[in-house]
């Protein structure tokens, strides 16, 4: 039987209250959101916080809100809400692509976007999604609010810029015209973490050339987006040879490890093939917004 080590439990009543509790209880306190990463780790005693600060009552962190040219998503927004949001699917189809293959529907009822990003597991699908969409993370702490680009948010596997006494409050996604995005994942079985996955986001110029592009990989040993692919794609008309070359660059840039999910050459092959597919799909979706 897996039972966590003893701890004290308190429910935060507001963001300020959560910050105050984190300061008061210090280094051995942790916030718990959906609990679907933290509780399994606590059950295995890989994590032994002395205080759990439950933020599930903070409905102020559970929202999807359009604000000018940004879409703001609260950190406590559940996977299921993200999957079912038609507004998100229209603006950022990559989110629905990814959410449909994150864990299973029951896990998705609990897990949150904030918990996913703060967990920072190398196989976390939403990290790649936020990277390629150029999201910003809004973090609050005793010193006030700071806003970080994803490149500054990530600090490596299981590590982020969110300090022990801070809270990730929201993600902000830039809304761009003529944009398209896509995500594709290969998993061993439904609900499993990725063997490998790729995400892409592109914006087209008025003449149909690629104005900007980002390609990211999940679980393939690449923490940042594939810079070489972005450089290659910019200014070009979308076409198959370009996607093939971008796939080759992604496969060269990644650094997967062999494990029970597959050997290195197979994972490199996935980086290549999945990059082609998501670019093809993202460009097609961007072109469709241009027509419509």
């Amino acid at each position, binding site marked *: 039987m*897996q*039972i966590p080590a*003893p*701890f*004290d439990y308190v429910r935060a009543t507001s963001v300020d209250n959560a910050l105050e509790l984190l300061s008061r209880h210090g280094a051995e306190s942790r916030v*718990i959101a959906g609990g679907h990463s933290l509780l399994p780790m606590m*059950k295995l005693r890989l994590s032994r916080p002395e205080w759990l600060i439950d933020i599930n009552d903070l409905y102020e962190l559970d929202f999807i809100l359009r604000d000018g040219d940004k879409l703001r998503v609260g950190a406590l927004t559940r996977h299921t809400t993200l999957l079912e949001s038609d507004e998100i699917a229209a603006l950022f189809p990559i989110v629905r692509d990814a959410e449909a293959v994150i864990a*299973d*529907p029951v896990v998705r009822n609990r897990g949150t976007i904030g918990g996913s990003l703060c967990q920072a597991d190398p196989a976390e699908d939403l990290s790649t999604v936020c990277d390629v969409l150029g999201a910003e993370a809004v973090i609050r702490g005793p010193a006030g609010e700071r806003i970080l680009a994803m490149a500054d948010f990530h600090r490596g596997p299981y590590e982020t810029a969110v300090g022990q006494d801070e809270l990730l409050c929201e993600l902000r996604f830039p809304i761009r015209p003529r944009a398209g995005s896509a995500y594709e994942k290969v998993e061993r079985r439904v609900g499993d973490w990725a063997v490998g996955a790729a995400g892409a986001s592109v914006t087209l110029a008025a003449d149909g050339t690629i104005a900007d592009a980002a390609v990211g990989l999940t679980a393939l040993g690449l923490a940042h987006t594939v810079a070489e692919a972005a450089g290659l794609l910019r200014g070009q008309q979308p076409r198959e040879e370009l996607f093939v070359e971008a796939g080759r660059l992604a496969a060269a840039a990644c650094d997967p490890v062999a494990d029970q999910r597959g050997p290195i050459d197979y994972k490199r092959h996935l980086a290549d093939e999945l990059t082609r597919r998501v670019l093809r799909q993202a460009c097609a979706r961007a072109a469709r917004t241009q027509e419509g």
Partner: protein
Amino acid sequence: MQINMTVNGNEVTSDIEPRVLLVHYIREVLGLTGTHWGCDTSNCGTCVVLMDGQPVKSCTVLAAMAAGHDIRTVEGLASGATLDPVQQGFMEEHGLQCGFCTPGMMLTARALLDKNPHPDTTEIRKAISGQICRCTGYATIVRSVQWAAAHPAGGDTDATVDEVIDGTDTAVEDIAAETQDAEVKS
């Protein structure tokens, strides 16, 4: 710590350690052993209960986190002697063999039908995709949920025990037909 919640419509109050998981609280403190406990790693789904109407894996929720919420377990499906249509469906279409996965499957089915009264087979399969059955091969579970969807007010189950045993019940014939179909295709 003291917690209060509603379980199957009843207010319950208990003094527990914060580390007690909801599944153990339900089974051991409340004595409602219909909720099963399997993998312990949020993979199998036998521990699924409804929290405010939504299926959750109770091995990965603290009882303390469920405080103040409305919990429904398999014991809360029937009202008195009247089975929930989902329970009738599982009887009618042989949605269980050993029965280990059944409580979780039935609660997920209930939540699905509350949200979407006429799901197609793909929607049913998706809804139960986080749950594992080692016995039925899922075909009969899907049909059980379809039966419940077709009989929202329940109804007399028409299969008698004899029909089930001698194989003349239609569900058994359907499976045989489906198996043959599958063989032809492969």
